[in-house]
């Protein structure tokens, strides 16, 4: 089994904790109506993001979904800018224009979270095309849910990526539900990974709760992609500990299912492994947790005190206006 080096493990654990706590805080803010709109959280799915991010290097890019906070944090979007974006503040990562569903930070390779199911998938092909045309060796990663694999854009993108041998990682976070529908009510196959065969690309099934397993599979796919051998579909078996969005209490989940999955909390899995390997003890973990909490609280406080964008922003950035124009 592939493992991460100590520092990478520490970073993964650290960011998983930050993501978990940031999302708890975000949920609070939404439920208290301190933020209006809706949000889609990913507690339970953090390892999918962290394991993948650990396999990437600067220049690589990511597109993802409205359920994208964990990806943003994994890639290094600063918590303050994330929180400010959540609140629609001018110092948010998108200047407040994007919001929870559209976190974007080109400086860390996050090309954008997307609120149209499947919309982000073909966009990754373009980033990969740039890499291929310019010979940069970069790979393009795109995250999506299992529900999204029933939409046309998914199909077209995987096919064209395969034909053009584009350096893309198709990362399917199969969290068992699309909104309130359990996956097998809308999808006739047991494993999403089998769909790779329609595109003559490798389809891999991975434990999405284990950051290192994700890292291993992603690393292999990255190597394949950088070598010019084309895309890979990776199915990450995972679970969202919360409902689909802000107010969803997930009444559709069978009794006990959540409890079973809580036993496979990605944070606990990595923590236990590090403890077993003598890299961490409970006290240190508590410290890490507290540090994450502090960072999140700081980000929230900071963001709350930041100004909203000025009204001129309303019509800015619709078009790029060149200096000369």
């Amino acid at each position, binding site marked *: 089994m592939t493992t991460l080096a100590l520092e990478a493990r520490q970073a993964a654990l650290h960011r998983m904790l930050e993501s978990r706590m940031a999302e708890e805080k975000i949920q609070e803010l939404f439920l208290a109506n301190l*933020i*209006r*709109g*809706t949000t889609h959280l990913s507690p339970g799915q953090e390892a999918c993001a962290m394991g993948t991010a650990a396999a990437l290097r600067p220049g690589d890019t990511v597109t993802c979904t409205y359920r994208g906070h964990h990806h943003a944090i994994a890639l290094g979007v600063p918590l303050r800018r994330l929180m400010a974006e959540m609140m*629609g*503040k*001018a110092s*948010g990562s*998108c*200047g*407040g*224009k*994007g*919001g*929870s*569903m*559209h976190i974007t930070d080109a400086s860390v390779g996050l090309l954008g979270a*997307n*609120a*149209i*199911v*499947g*919309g982000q998938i073909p966009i990754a092909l373009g980033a990969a095309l740039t890499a291929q045309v310019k010979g940069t060796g970069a790979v393009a990663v795109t995250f999506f849910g299992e*529900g*999204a694999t*029933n*939409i*046309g854009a998914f199909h077209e993108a995987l096919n064209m990526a395969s034909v053009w041998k584009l350096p893309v990682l198709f990362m399917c976070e199969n969290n068992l539900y*699309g*909104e*309130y*529908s359990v996956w097998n*009510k*809308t*999808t006739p196959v047991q494993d999403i990974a089998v769909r790779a065969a329609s595109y003559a690309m490798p389809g891999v099934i991975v434990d999405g709760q284990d950051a290192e397993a994700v890292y291993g599979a992603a690393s292999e796919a990255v190597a394949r992609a950088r070598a010019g051998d084309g895309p890979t579909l990776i199915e990450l078996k995972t679970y969202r500990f919360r409902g689909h969005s802000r107010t969803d209490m997930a009444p*559709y989940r069978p009794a006990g299912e959540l409890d079973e999955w809580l036993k496979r909390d990605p944070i606990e899995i990595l923590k236990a492994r590090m403890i077993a390997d003598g890299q961490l003890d409970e006290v240190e973990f508590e410290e890490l947790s507290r540090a994450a909490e502090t960072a999140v609280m700081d980000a929230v406080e900071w963001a709350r005190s930041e100004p*909203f*964008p000025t*009204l001129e*922003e*309303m*019509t800015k950035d*619709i078009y790029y206006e060149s200096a000369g124009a």
Partner: protein
Amino acid sequence: MTEITYREAVVRALADEMAADPNVVFFGEDVAEAGGVFKVTPGLLERFGPVRVRDTPISEQAIIGTALGAAITGLRPVAELMFADFIPVAMDQIVNQVAKYRYMSGGQFIVPLTIRAAQGGGNGFGTQHSQCAESWLMNFPGLKVVSPSTPADMYGLLRGAIREDNPVIVLEHKGLYNLKGELPDDAGPLPLGQAKVVRAGRDVTIVTSQLMLHRSLEAADALAKDGIECEVIDVRCFAPLDSATILASLAKTNRIVTVEEAPHSAGWGGDIASLAATEGAYWLAAPVKRVNMGGALVAYSPPLEDEVLPNVSRIAREVKAVMAG
């Protein structure tokens, strides 16, 4: 007379039509077991069973194509597209297939098909989940487009749409779901294609719809205090457009203002202004005024979103400008 919400009007209309005609079927994403993401359609599955009320995969093209095929073979399907922002995902099926199917076949089929979708801004849902879709659909002869603004109209027009032997797109405004209103005990299907003078007035005609109707009525109240009597027209049906009602009002008031929740360019207000400039030109005593989103998009940030949508004071200001013109 009972008081119901706009939300309840939807499910009541659906239930009444399903009870009246076994050929009416209803499907969409999470509409059956969960009763819809806006909790608009609860109870239909329980009452009419899984053959007639179905959840679909996330496959908007398949949803609309299926509805079309069902409509031309004897069912009267109602398909939900959830957010109107997803209409473009199924655009080919809607505009190249549904709209043209009867025509291309030389009239061999009727296409009794209803598409429902929730639209509009003001909820912090961001750029991809806050649009109004009427204007996108009006350049496609073959479609009817309905936008009810009150619970009673929602009920009657949705029933009317389901009874239509032509494809109808019914757009529900998210911001109105909680709006309450009276439903007459003998309420039945309403005919499509009729605008409604919601408030009579002699000085200026306001042509508007849905959320903007309610804001326009507020503005009209305020203007009345300044001695300006607005005639407020609810378009209700954008295709076919009830030109007669609008022209009759213009003939009386000689002044016209459109209040649109949409960008200016190719927005439906252009059709109203065009009507005034062509058939209504001799009645026009002042330039037409269009109040809309201009060249802007709906941003996530609350102050930007609040600014982009026409509000009561902006409407009142523009009406005054027209009175002065």
